[in-house]
């Protein structure tokens, strides 16, 4: 009688097989999940550089060119987007009708202004060993029409000489693959309030004015996954005996010529108008100390990179985010 309630031997065997299969599947699933979790954990553990920022963008070249007026040789520097230049140069047939390329005001600056920024710009090197910042090719020549209808002529050789003569002296490490723009922060007291500045080379841009009026628009020419804003540190605090923090470094590290040059540079009258009148690149005779004394400047950069400072909180909100450089760069040595 009681045998009815006890499963037969065969039924019991089927049940046990099924439960074994279920247990086995569960165990394998758990192992797989744990492996997956481990892998995700490893990926998250990649180091992120907290003072190196770029845009979420495809790797692109940056093009620039120098144009000059025939009248007084005043020179302008233009930053052009790679996709525009590539489209223009892709057309191989004889051109019987002009194509007009409009360039926003923020992408054109006087050569003097560019020279102020140049010490902080370090072009990267692509797979072919070429600079990722390219002068325009000879394939594309255009007349440059200024807002005052003044005609400028693109000077290809001048553009090439900038790359050949100016930037190599700025290279800290020729193996750098990514372009870098070194940026420092500065806080000044203004009417009892703190005023934030972004310092690039010799130019200190007040925030948020420089963002709003397009003074920093040229940085968008470096809108590339391989061009980084590199934070070097804060310039606010320095001893009162010095002109600024850089001057203090040059004096303390024995770069006396550079320190002297920097001091004289800062004390010059009509400095802005002098800079506006720069129409050619003279590296050795330059009155810009960071260009003339590139060894001292490179030493300064090295020192700051070793210090590895974190940017202040306002740096993100006032500078990086409005411009779009809101992505920290993964710290992978082989793709630096």
């Amino acid at each position, binding site marked *: 009688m009681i045998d009815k309630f006890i499963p037969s031997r065969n039924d019991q065997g089927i049940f046990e097989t099924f439960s074994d299969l279920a247990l086995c599947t569960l165990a394998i699933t758990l192992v797989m999940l744990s492996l997956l979790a481990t892998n995700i954990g490893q990926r998250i553990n990649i180091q992120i550089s907290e003072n190196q920022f770029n845009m979420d963008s495809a790797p692109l070249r940056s093009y620039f060119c120098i*144009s000059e007026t025939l009248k007084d040789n005043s020179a*302008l520097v*233009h930053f052009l987007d790679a996709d525009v230049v590539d489209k*223009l140069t892709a057309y191989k047939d*004889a*051109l*019987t*009708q*002009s*194509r*007009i*390329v*409009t*360039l*926003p*005001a*923020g*992408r*054109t*600056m*006087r050569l003097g*202004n560019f020279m*102020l920024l140049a010490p902080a710009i370090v072009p990267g090197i692509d797979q072919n060993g070429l600079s990722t910042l390219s002068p325009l090719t000879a394939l*594309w*020549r*255009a*007349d*440059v*029409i*200024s*807002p005052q209808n003044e005609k400028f002529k*693109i000077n290809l050789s001048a553009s090439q000489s900038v790359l050949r003569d100016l930037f190599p002296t700025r290279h800290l490490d020729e193996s750098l693959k990514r372009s870098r723009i070194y940026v420092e922060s*500065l806080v000044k007291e203004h009417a009892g309030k703190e005023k934030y*500045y972004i*310092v690039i080379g*010799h*130019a*200190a*841009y*007040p925030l948020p*004015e*420089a963002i709003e*009026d*397009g*003074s920093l*628009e*040229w940085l968008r020419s470096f809108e590339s996954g391989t061009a980084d804003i590199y934070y070097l540190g804060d*310039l606010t605090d320095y001893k009162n005996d010095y002109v*600024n923090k850089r001057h203090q470094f040059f004096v303390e590290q024995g770069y006396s010529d550079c320190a002297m040059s920097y001091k004289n540079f*800062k004390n010059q009258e009509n*400095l*802005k108008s002098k*800079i506006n009148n720069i129409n050619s690149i003279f590296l050795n005779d330059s009155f810009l100390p960071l260009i003339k004394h590139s060894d001292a400047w490179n030493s300064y950069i090295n020192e700051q990179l070793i210090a590895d400072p974190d940017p202040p909180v306002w740096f993100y909100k006032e500078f990086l985010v409005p411009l779009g450089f809101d992505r920290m760069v993964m710290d992978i040595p082989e793709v630096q």
Partner: protein
Amino acid sequence: MKNFFKFVNFIKLGVLIFPIIFSGCASFELKSFPEKAEIYEAEEKIGETPYKFEQFSGERKFTIKKYGYVEKELTISSLGEKDSNIKLEKVKKTTLNTVPTDVRVVRTRDSVELGRTSLSLPLSKPEVVVLEKEGYKSYPLTLEPNQTYRIDMEPLEGFKSVYFMTTPSGAKISDRSVGDIISKTPSLISAQEGTEFEFNLEGYQPSFYMINKRSPDRVYVDLIPVPQVTIDSLYGAEIFGAAGGEKLGEVPYTELIKEVRAFEIRKSGYYPKTVTVSPESPSDIFVKLESIPIKRIVTKPEGGTVARIGQNEVLGIAPINILAGSERLIEISLDGYAKRVIGIGPDSPDEIIIELQLLAKDRLVLEGIQNATFEIY
């Protein structure tokens, strides 16, 4: 008395015997002109002329030899003349002519072929020969030095001798099936019946004749001249073989036309023309050439380079006259101007004006120049 008679008898016998003894006993001398000829007796050299010898009875046979002279055989009898003066004849040509010619002359004694007729031989002594030719009976003959012979060979059974004559004479006669040249007309030829002969003479069409039983002894072949055609055209035109043949010459060009032939007449600036001539064509043909139209290419501005497509072959600098024989594409280029490719052909206007368009330059229009807000640091 007895002794006296004995003496008388002895005298009588002496008188009888003496003449018998001394009548045949004599000295002989052989002389020759020229002298120093060799004297052979029974193939053995016995001396040279002049040659003295004693011969009392019988005969002696001599052969007198001298290089360059005909051998002479001589028989000397004891009763003959005592002095022999022999004049030797110089070796000249022994000529042997046969009808037909090309007969083998074979020396009988050693079967050596001396040559083929017509034949001239320098013989210093008679030679026995046999004349041999296919289709003819063999003919034995003794050739005497310095003689001329004309032998008519007798054909074999089934062969026929025919004397071929042509107008004009001198035509080569060849066996059509074999191709070998046998003789030249006029000529007597013996051949098997059914043999076909071909008669060829430069400037004449080939003629044929087949020998048969009823063929006459003399066959007369009238050769028909090959037609000669002279092609003329514009001065300086050149004649080429048709379909890319090589250059044959310039007009006026004369050629013997045995069969239908095509020629191409070319002259710069004219369309080439092909002309076909046959033996029935008139002897003078004038080929009229049609000039290729010339088109004047003018560019605005002047100085454009006119070239074939791809500029592999530059035709010149505009303004330029170019031949437009057929539809073709030309490329016009000038620094600072856009290239133009145009098609020209025979129907294009005589003057083609091509306006070149200035190359455009792109314009980089600045919305402004950055008036940046910054302090110098």
